[in-house]
């Protein structure tokens, strides 16, 4: 099997889709530089550079999709969804329902997300739970190169709006372009399996709503997405040294949510620990508790999430985002009782 970086896997799946289907067109700011490897291959008509006008060019993505294209609109960073929120919340997510199901919106919105490189609280948010809250949106948050490519292909083929979020610590393009910027004097805690890994020679779409069990464990079930999966795996490794068997589930898509995989595992372990880089309140971590309870499963529950605005200073940021020591400590607390 060939290996690819997380960033290359996504572009590669997009190239495969663009080759197969003329209707796949991508646009966003500075894409001729940021996606230069697609720009050179597919030209300026299909890899389009936009002005800094997120409200207009995401909104246009909605109707371009309704008009027959399969657009991939890049927001650069998911934080900038703030500017485009009307198109996402009131249009992309709703038109299929409003039209009585007659008019789907096959739009992909691609954006970098997440922190861990010191860029401050307006450029490092996760926001997948916030977006998944809106009925009508599919929210994809891959943690490995193979998933990233396969889920991107599925997103392009899907007949509804998909938010595709790539973590900036996993993507060399974003980490180097926003964090390192040519310096050898800065370091980042990058999980090697997330950054680079085996990928299929030809991309096949991966199904939405199917979690991956990354590690089996009977004492405790850790559920996470994106970078958090790698943090959870590292924590599970530490816990194993104490004889604790922690399982790790990678949701892969926040919506649709793979409820049955989570319930099955929690029913067996009796303990659920959610690791979520998105904000703690009213989000994915609470949703997971709810679906387990709705399944009639009694369990012990804890969560390691982001609770405040993400501070700029690296040492404060480190304490704010979920990290391995916090996960291990939360797991030990759960096991104690």
């Amino acid at each position, binding site marked *: 099997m060939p290996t690819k970086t997380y960033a290359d896997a996504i572009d590669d799946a997009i190239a495969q889709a663009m*080759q197969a289907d003329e209707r796949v067109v991508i646009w966003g*700011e500075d894409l001729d530089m940021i996606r230069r490897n697609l720009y050179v291959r597919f*030209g*300026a008509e299909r890899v389009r550079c*936009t002005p800094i*006008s997120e*409200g207009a060019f995401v909104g246009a993505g909605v109707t371009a999709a309704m008009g027959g294209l399969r657009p991939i609109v890049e927001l650069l960073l998911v934080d900038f969804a703030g500017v485009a929120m009307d198109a996402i919340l009131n249009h992309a997510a709703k038109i299929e329902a409003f039209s009585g199901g007659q008019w789907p919106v096959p739009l992909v919105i691609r954006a970098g997300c997440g922190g861990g490189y010191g860029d401050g609280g307006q450029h490092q948010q996760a926001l997948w739970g916030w977006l998944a809250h809106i009925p009508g949106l599919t929210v994809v948050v891959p943690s490995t190169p193979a998933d990233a490519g396969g889920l991107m292909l599925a997103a392009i083929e899907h007949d509804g709006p998909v938010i595709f979020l790539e973590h900036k610590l996993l993507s060399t393009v974003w980490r180097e372009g926003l964090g390192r*910027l040519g310096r050898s004097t800065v370091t980042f805690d990058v999980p090697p399996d997330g950054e680079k890994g085996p990928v299929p020679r030809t991309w096949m779409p991966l199904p939405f709503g199917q979690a991956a069990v990354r590690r089996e464990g009977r004492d405790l079930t850790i559920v996470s997405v994106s970078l958090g999966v790698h943090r959870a795996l590292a924590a599970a490794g530490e816990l194993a040294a104490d004889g604790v068997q922690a399982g790790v589930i990678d949701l892969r898509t926040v919506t649709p949510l793979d409820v049955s995989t989570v319930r099955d595992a929690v029913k067996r372990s009796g303990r659920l620990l959610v690791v979520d880089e998105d904000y703690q309140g009213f989000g994915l971590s609470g949703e997971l508790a709810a679906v387990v309870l709705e399944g009639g499963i009694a369990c012990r529950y804890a969560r390691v999430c982001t609770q405040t*605005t993400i501070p*700029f200073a690296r040492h404060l940021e480190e304490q704010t985002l979920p990290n391995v020591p916090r996960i291990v400590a939360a797991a030990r607390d759960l096991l104690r009782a």
Partner: protein
Amino acid sequence: MLPDVWTLYRRMLFSRRFEEAVHRLWDAGLISAEMHLSMGEEGIVAGVLDHLQPGDALALDHRGTAPLLMHGIDPERLLRECLGQEDGLCNGWGGHMHLFSREHLAASSGIVGASGPAAVGFALAAQHLRPGHLAVAFFGEGAVNQGMLMESFNLAVAWKLPVVFVCKDNGWAIYTPRERAISTPLIDRAAGFGLHTTSVDGRDVTAVWEAARDAQTRAREGRGPSFLHARCVHLEGHLLGDPLVRAVRQPLREIAPVFGPMLRAVTRRQGAPVRQRLGPLREVGTRGNRLVSSQRASDDDPLVWTRKQLTGESDRLSTLEAEVTAQVNDIVARVQPE
């Protein structure tokens, strides 16, 4: 009336030396992630801010260091904030894109275009609570395609608010040249909203100062908002470590990482026939060159321009420069972690 060019030059030089120190600290890895400097914008910033009074408000974009320094914020606390220290201007929570000083009514944002609505709100508060005061918005030419900024132009005119909108036009929004994104001259667009408009050469601090004096007088007298358009260059590219700047300055080391993926794209499987790929490749290469060369010319440096007017008094000039350098060195020595 003419500005005191000595004072303006001192402020511009202080900002430059300060940002040179920021550059060194960033290179050393002591400042994280993106860092957008004001280097090249000092003429605009100094010319505008000389007219501000306590009680006036400042809405800033991602290049806030020069405006804050020239607005009287404690440079040591500003530098500590860039370093993420707990006694920084915002206790290490904001960083260089999110700099705030309530005392100085100064607020920044890393969201392009956000300084428009920010200035409108500050101006409205001034209209109610601090008559005779105003708000200044700084933004780049790339921001004028952001709806919220255009809406702010209109709102400021509709409510006749005391706002001075200052567009620092370097001709580029990261890698997007102005002419590709903006269809009509900026000044016409602003005039279309009913803003009072002026265009000046941002290298010329005196010209900026004069244009800004008129704009702020209009605002204070209740005659409504203005749009001041000023050209400039960014001497260090879009941000520190700008890949195109790196590729030009250190071609041996940097060309491969910057252009490698693009060259590999020429031979990758999917896509147009290879012949057709050369066009886009050449186009990006040419534009990169144009971008970098347009940002390096010393004739475009507002400090060089301003200094020329002062060389007649060479002793006074060298004393001033030595003082400013020593001041900044002192600050750096105080804040630098061991």
